[in-house]
């Protein structure tokens, strides 16, 4: 006899990365799980999925002064430029950002 296969835990790589980042920051002592549940619960009308996790962790680390919304936005733009400059199928690295 065998168990039916379990569905994939993460629907996309970014979900897995988000989960791992949150757990790592928890392990680094940035917040307790109770803090985390409260932060997620502020959006009670929304599914507490990894999109909400990502939004919540971005806000939480900005609140704690680790980074800012502007720094995150600038880094996203740098990754977008690096991606555009990277041939399809090759790893997208920040150092390949040609700049603005």
């Amino acid at each position: 006899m065998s168990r039916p296969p379990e569905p994939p835990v993460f629907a996309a790589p970014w979900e897995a990365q988000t989960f791992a980042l949150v757990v790592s920051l928890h392990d680094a002592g940035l917040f307790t799980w109770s803090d985390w549940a409260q932060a997620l619960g502020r959006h009670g009308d929304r599914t507490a999925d990894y999109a909400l996790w990502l939004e919540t962790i971005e806000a939480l680390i900005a609140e704690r002064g680790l980074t800012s919304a502007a720094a995150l936005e600038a880094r996203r733009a740098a990754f977008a430029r690096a991606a555009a400059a990277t041939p399809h199928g090759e790893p997208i690295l920040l150092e390949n950002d040609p700049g603005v």
Partner: protein
Amino acid sequence: MAQDHDHHDHHHDHDHDHPHGSELSPMDLRVRALESILVEKGYVDPAALDTLIETYETKVGPHNGARVVARAWVDPAFKARLLADGSAAMRELDVGGRGGEHMVVVENTPEEHNLVVCTLCSCYPWPVLGLPPVWYKSPPYRSRAVIDPRGVLAEFGTELPAATRIRVWDSTAELRYMVLPMRPPGTDHLDEAALADLVTRDSMIGTGLPLSPDQVVHA
């Protein structure tokens, strides 16, 4: 190697005027930006992230909870310890860790059926069940499990006798519940490993019941 040799004689004249760059989805961009900043500042270690992901993709999942349930079905002393102190009894089976510090196991009986929810967000007993399915995290489940548990069970195809009470347990970050389902009838001949195959994720959340032996695929 030898086949398709013609292909290599062919002159490559792809159009190099058009850029063939890559693209990242908005969510990929966000998580990459976040990760690279946190790595730069020394808050996270990329290798540790990979290990975490691998652990939750391959090692932690409902098969762990199923082992706990099967042991409780065959070993009354273990079951008593499990109901008295869930986390301690699970450690006997090397099940535990993050998110399982204070686990409470609630036992289904013919009189009472248990259903687990997190009304606030998505608190869930990771060491025994892995990470929660999307429906568990959705507002309809989180609110309706409390207001209309029998209706929720019906949507999962789970019908209980009218006389069975349904008790709903609201998980928190500190206190996480797992249901100990009833051992299905007709399973006296099964060993512990075969019993574990009957224990589904949903039967440990309370939205479902264990499989009967004839529902399990014989591999």
